[in-house]
């Protein structure tokens, strides 16, 4: 199947957005705005431990968004109150803290998690206690829960367009799929491998390499990439290397003199925040695929960056893609609550589908029935100042394939949380809900 089928035109998305706004305006009757209490919003991001490096920023952006909403008069006539907990990069603790947020603090919704394993850890809690989680990070797909809204990219909203870009613009024929050894890179690479093979790439033109978390000695892996790239065919590296391991990886690339003009590296986990820790001059031209870059040139984004830098009192503070995902997720939740006239999770979950809000890349993102959002895909080249130069943007928005069409077993599954189907893994072959991904 081609991706083009899934592209909606901007105009269609705009229309959907208008319809949703109209619905929101009708739905929020003042009668529903009761009392003077507060609405609690849970923030479940690690503020200590390994993941603090990425997640602390998301906590801050949530605090900013909540403060801003309160300045606008709150929600349903009440003030919003942020409840911040620290799951300390400890996966079981995520589940405990999620339970605490929902059962003890009685939050209306939770914004949180970064790694897939933390999301998997809290999933049963949200389903059992029927609350809402907004998950802002790109992930491997193969999941759709009634209680989770995925505002990050699914593989077809990031990985596959990036590979297409390299194949078309750089005429890449040989692929290194390099990743950290855990579920997101493994699943993404499985999807990419199947996709590349479906495009006629041969087995010997794909090299797959996994490294442990925090891998810091890249010497012979980079050397083997260099060797793999010298077979006379244009070669590129598709990197799902996560977090801490990236800095030494890029430093080694620079040291061994691998330039983007020879072997470009396209990364799915390297954004402005990660680059803030590296001297990017040797990385000039290496790529990243995201749905948002800080360098997107439009008024909304500029205003957002100004607000963020003022909020953090740091004029050099950067923005990144998961932050934008929270901006979209929060705006959608606010809209859905206004539409439902209540913060009751069951009603808000139903109200969420079809809600469309402006994203920061210049357009509208809409919540689809599979609980994923529509996004544009941008490809950026790293510049000397740690920012990205956007070299390609999909002409329309892309709808997420939560179940990848390139994987055996997940090919026949769809998610649709509208009644009467209301199912996260409906098997179109057997016509039954609950088809397993295996």
């Amino acid at each position, binding site marked *: 199947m081609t991706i083009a089928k899934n592209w909606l035109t901007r105009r269609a998305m705009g229309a959907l957005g208008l319809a949703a706004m109209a619905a929101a305006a009708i739905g929020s009757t003042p009668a529903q705005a009761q009392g003077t209490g507060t609405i609690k919003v849970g923030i479940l991001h690690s*503020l*200590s431990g*390994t993941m*603090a*490096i990425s997640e*602390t*920023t998301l906590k801050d952006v949530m605090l900013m968004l909540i403060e801003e909403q309160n300045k606008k008069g709150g929600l349903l006539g009440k003030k919003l109150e942020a409840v911040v907990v620290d799951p300390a990069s400890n996966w079981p603790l995520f589940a405990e803290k999620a339970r605490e947020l929902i059962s003890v603090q009685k939050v209306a919704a939770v914004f949180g998690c970064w790694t897939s394993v933390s999301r998997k850890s809290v999933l049963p809690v949200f389903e059992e206690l029927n609350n809402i989680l907004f998950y802002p990070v790109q992930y491997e797909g193969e999941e759709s829960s009634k209680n989770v809204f995925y505002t990050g990219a699914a593989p077809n909203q990031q990985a596959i367009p990036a590979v297409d870009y390299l194949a078309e*613009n*750089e005429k890449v024929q040989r692929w290194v799929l390099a990743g950290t*050894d855990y579920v997101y890179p493994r699943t993404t690479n499985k999807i990419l491998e199947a996709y590349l093979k479906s495009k006629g790439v041969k087995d010997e033109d794909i090299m797959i*390499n*996994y*490294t*442990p978390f*925090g*891998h*810091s*000695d890249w*010497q*012979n*892996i980079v*050397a*083997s990439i*260099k*060797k793999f790239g*010298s*077979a*006379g*065919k244009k070669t590129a590296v598709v990197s799902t290397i996560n977090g*801490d391991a990236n*800095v*030494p990886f890029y*430093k*080694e690339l*620079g*040291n*061994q*003199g691998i330039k*983007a*003009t*020879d072997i*470009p590296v396209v990364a799915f986990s390297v954004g402005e*925040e*990660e680059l*803030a*820790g*590296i*001297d990017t001059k*040797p990385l*000039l*031209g290496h790529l990243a695929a995201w749905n948002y870059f800080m360098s997107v040139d439009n008024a909304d984004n500029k205003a957002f960056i100004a607000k963020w830098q003022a909020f953090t009192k740091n004029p050099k503070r950067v923005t990144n893609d998961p932050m934008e995902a929270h901006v979209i997720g929060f705006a959608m939740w606010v809209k859905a609550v206004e539409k439902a006239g209540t913060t009751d999770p069951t009603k808000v979950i139903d109200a969420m589908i079809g809600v469309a809000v402006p994203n920061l890349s210049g357009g509208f993102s809409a919540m689809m029935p599979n609980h994923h959002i529509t996004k544009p895909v941008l490809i950026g*080249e790293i*510049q*000397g100042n740690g920012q990205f*130069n956007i*070299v390609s943007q999909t002409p329309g928005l892309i709808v997420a394939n939560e179940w990848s069409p390139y994987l055996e077993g997940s090919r026949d599954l769809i998610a649709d949380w509208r009644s009467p189907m209301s199912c996260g893994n409906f098997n179109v072959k057997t016509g039954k809900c609950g088809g397993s991904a295996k």
Partner: protein
Amino acid sequence: MLRILLLCLLMLAPICAPSSARADDAANEAVVALAGQNFDDIRRGVEALGVSGSPRAAAILGALQDGRLVLGADKQLFIKLPEGGYQAALTGEPAADPGSVRPVRVNNSIRRSVDAALGALRLFDASAATRASAAEAVFKSRDPAGIPALTRAIAAEKDSGVKRTMEQARAAALFAAGDASEADRLAAVATLRDRGDIDARALLSTLTNQPPSVVEAAAAAVKSIDFSLQLWSLLQSVYYGLSLGSVLLLAATGLAITFGVMGVINMAHGEMVMIGAYVTFVVQTIIRNHAPGLFGASLFFAVPLAFLVAGAIGVAIERSLIRWLYGRPLETLLATWGLSLLLQQAIRSIFGPTNQEVGTPAWMSGAMQLGGLSLTYNRLTIIVFAVLVLATLMAVLRYTSLGLRMRAVTQNRRMAAAMGIRTPWIDALTFGLGSGVAGMAGVALSQIDNVSPNLGQGYIIDSFMVVVFGGVGNLWGTAVGALTLGILNKFLEPVAGAVLAKIVVLVALILFIQRKPRGMFPLKGRAVEA
């Protein structure tokens, strides 16, 4: 006839000098393309400018390569000068500040075209290094159009190394030239075979449309290159192993003192390394702000400072925490582990959770070619640094009175006390020394790893592994242990993959410890039995 000639001379000088006029026209057209939005147009503009023959081509393309070619409001091109100010791109005349500008758009394929075009233009540059890199760029682009220029450049070249690179570049381009004779092609194969590196192999293995004799010669050349590459790659793996070993050694040396000599299970050891890295960051920030000229020497300031800071913190930890816990390994383990979390969070609160940028001085960037070996300067520096640190430490322990006292206290505390040594102070100083060495390791690690609060965590397990494997209490053992583990790891990695290699090394280590619980070089004597 004469009249026409005169007319020509008087009025139509440009027509009589057609080559320069055409060059200007071509350059004008190319520059218009550069001002466009479309990447393909810009790339064509670059290519056209490269062959336009315009004297400004090299300057314009050079500025584009450095990101200094900018567009003014009315699509005029300017070159932003490194020392400030602007220059009109086409004429090279100084220009007034054009106000708001944006750089000409560049992507990888444009960058490739710029490199290739500049390579052809700079073959006659005054600097040998520029000519060499120009020849290397032509080698990569393999454009047969460059052959005449290369031939001229080779004839004019004085530097033998640059000349060789130019000949290789000509050989690479020759295969695509339609009119090259078979003998020339065979000679080109021989030239590339002599080059013998991975790029030459790539070129030779992918030749198409060649006469049979050339194909045969190329296949033989590939075989011989493969053989020598394999030999070099063995040596290269040894270097990688040494380099990983030296990193492990640096991280473990401090621990060899606190754990090996004093017997304190110090889980906060990694955080001392991290503090050393943050000291480097602070030193570099100060130098960047106040004395940018000294940046190349920043690490020389950072090393002693990191030693002092981490050492002082080490002494403070010993005096306030560890001295109450001697002889209680389990409590020490828990207390120092808690301390490590405390230190991490403290750094996180002060500097923020994100990575800090520590720059690499120019003399530590890049790599050096030694035959088929590529030795990266930063790794080479770290190997040398590790050896220096180890040697200094051994000398301190062996030849200074402080070292003598340290050894006396660890071997027989009561006897040493009876001889009048203030054992509590020696304990504090020994712990401070171990921590200080860890701090110096942090300076080195800041060059190859993230400077984040988590830096130390990645090294603590490896450090304990090295010390236990080498033999507790023995610095030589630590050195041999680190290098063995490093080389073992690097030879396993290509075969088993990085994840499995780590597991195999761990399992092998466990089995080894089962057989020899005291490590490779156990201490002997009564002190050990006690």
